[in-house]
């Protein structure tokens, strides 16, 4: 699992690459948390374009970071969600609270409207 982090104004873009399961969840949690707490981060865009596998451990990590960022008054937008991951979002009800956009560009522009 690799994380690519990029700051775009006050939005942190996180690109997940590889497989998100129980084994890799802790790394994702720690790296995202560090970047959110260290930088001047208000919103998060989570790109799943290069995510090849995810299970319920991934749902836990996403929900945890969602709570962190919304607790600070920010928003979290998820983009490039493949059908397999989307099914997990549906099953868990996460798609009701997460904002899902087609790609990074539309995720960023949806945040620029609100901020």
């Amino acid at each position, binding site marked *: 699992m690799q994380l690519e982090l990029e700051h775009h104004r006050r939005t942190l873009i996180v690109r997940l690459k590889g497989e998100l399961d129980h084994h890799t969840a802790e790394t994702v949690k720690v790296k995202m948390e560090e970047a959110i707490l260290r930088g001047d981060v208000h919103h998060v865009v989570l790109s799943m374009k290069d995510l090849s*596998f995810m299970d*319920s451990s991934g*749902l836990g990590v996403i929900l945890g970071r969602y709570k962190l960022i919304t607790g600070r008054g920010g928003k979290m937008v998820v983009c490039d969600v493949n059908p397999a991951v989307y099914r997990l979002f549906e099953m868990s009800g996460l798609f009701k609270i997460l904002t899902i956009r087609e790609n990074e560009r539309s995720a960023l522009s949806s945040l620029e409207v609100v901020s």
Partner: protein
Amino acid sequence: MSRNNHMQLRFASLSENESFARVTVAAFASQLDPTMEELTDIKTVVSEAVTNAIIHGYENSPDGEIEICARIEDDRLHLTVEDKGRGIEDLELARQPLYTSKPELERSGMGFTIMENFMDEVDVISEPGKGTKVVMVKRIASKKALFN
């Protein structure tokens, strides 16, 4: 129609083995010529059951052993994932969507719900202090059938 086949896998209760287990079972199941979606379903349920065994069965101790048996019977894949860990006290509660006994670990509580959604049959046999066995069956609607 596929010939019947079976395999067994035994490994240490280390989280590194979660991806090993799901990839290996998926490779075995590919004999049934599943679709990409069916293959993802199989990988996901193996990942869920093995993760449960590691986190809940063995409470993250690396000294446990997990055994997976996979069997192909005609167009069906039978899977059992078994641990000799602490077992589940209340099975009905454990299978509730969003229930987790370890909320402090950021668990989503969706493991059993995912298994039930992705497989045709899911049985959980557990005895406190002895271990847990998850038995699952999935029918693979072979792509080959379309051409017959």
